[in-house]
């Protein structure tokens, strides 16, 4: 059993469990699945700066921060105790494309050439980590949710604005990955 768990989980198992987060959180206490709002709660708790957007009782949303803390713990457990021996398999055409930017797939989840402390001080690493992170925080709040809040929770409840948001997420991703990212990676 433990050997099976240590292998990469297939999409239908993972998707099913992720989908079950929706009813689970509703049944546990009427909570809508969502994660990006945590970034807002952190602002409200630490840097409200007298902005009306951050003046609300964030302690009431404490459950969301517990959920995020759980994700950190879950990431730790998976990496520390449930990691398999197999290296991450990456599509060959992606690998050969990335090779032209000196990015090698070493079997890890993220390429160390971009996601490591030394990489943070390279131009492309700085852009990806700092600007990329900024876009994630700014964009999710402007859109009112992220992949979990809109694409999963919103679509599950058949909300058409969430479909608009999801299509926008994907459009932005396709534009960035195919048209802009190659220039950033060549820096």
């Amino acid at each position, binding site marked *: 059993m433990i050997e099976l768990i240590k292998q990469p*989980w297939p999409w239908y*198992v*993972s998707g*099913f469990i*992720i*989908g079950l987060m*929706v*009813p*689970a959180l*509703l*049944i546990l*206490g*009427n*909570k*809508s699945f969502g994660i*990006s*709002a945590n*970034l807002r709660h952190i*602002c409200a708790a630490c840097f409200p700066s007298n*902005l009306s957007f951050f003046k609300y009782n964030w302690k009431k*949303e404490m459950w969301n921060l517990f*959920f995020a803390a*759980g994700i*950190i*713990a*879950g*990431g*730790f457990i*998976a*990496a*520390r105790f449930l990691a398999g021996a197999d290296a991450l398999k990456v*599509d060959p*055409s*992606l690998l050969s494309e990335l090779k032209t930017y000196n990015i090698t797939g070493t079997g890890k*989840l*993220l*390429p160390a050439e*971009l996601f*490591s*402390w030394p990489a943070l001080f390279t131009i492309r690493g700085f852009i990806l980590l700092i*600007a*990329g*992170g900024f*876009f*994630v*925080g*700014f*964009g*999710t709040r*402007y859109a009112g949710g992220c*992949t979990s809040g809109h694409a*999963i929770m*919103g679509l*599950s409840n058949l909300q058409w604005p969430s479909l*608009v948001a999801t299509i*926008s*997420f994907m459009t932005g991703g*396709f534009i*960035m*990955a195919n048209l802009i990212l190659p220039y950033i990676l060549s820096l």
Partner: protein
Amino acid sequence: MIMDTIKQKQRIVKQEHATQSDDFITDYEVRSLDTACINETELQHPWWYNFKYLIAGILFGIVLVKSEVVSWFRIQEMFRLQSFHMYGVIGTAVVTGIISIWLLKKFKVKTMHGETIHFTRKKFNKGQVIGGLVFGFGWAMTGACPGPLFAQLGAGITVIAVVIASAVAGTWVYGKLRDKLPH
């Protein structure tokens, strides 16, 4: 000042209304536009009740890592149409969610504390398009949405703390510029 008080009162009334029906259209002013900020229990629980959400988060974090959804490579494959994996994960999650909510509504399932389950409607605004595109850029660059960012940090990629801090900064700047942005 007086306007603020009136607005606050309106907000309270709207919140009370929110807990009564799912026809509620979200208050644009403050608590709106957010999944996490509307659906709330009326019951007062001790703070340690929140540990149940920690457990749910742990399970979610494990799935995110074991399904390799947290991998930058998987996200690049998705946006280059080189792999079905991410579409399979998100698609299965959505179908599971749709069926779950349909069942919850059909059988009028209550929460574990006996409360009626509320569903909030999302109201359209331009932010879902503009903000959505901006988030899409960030998603393809960092290879992560907010959930995976936390999972990556837990998985030991410590530099992700910088990405999360930058995301908090992005959220703050949105809060600062909010009145000037088209909605």
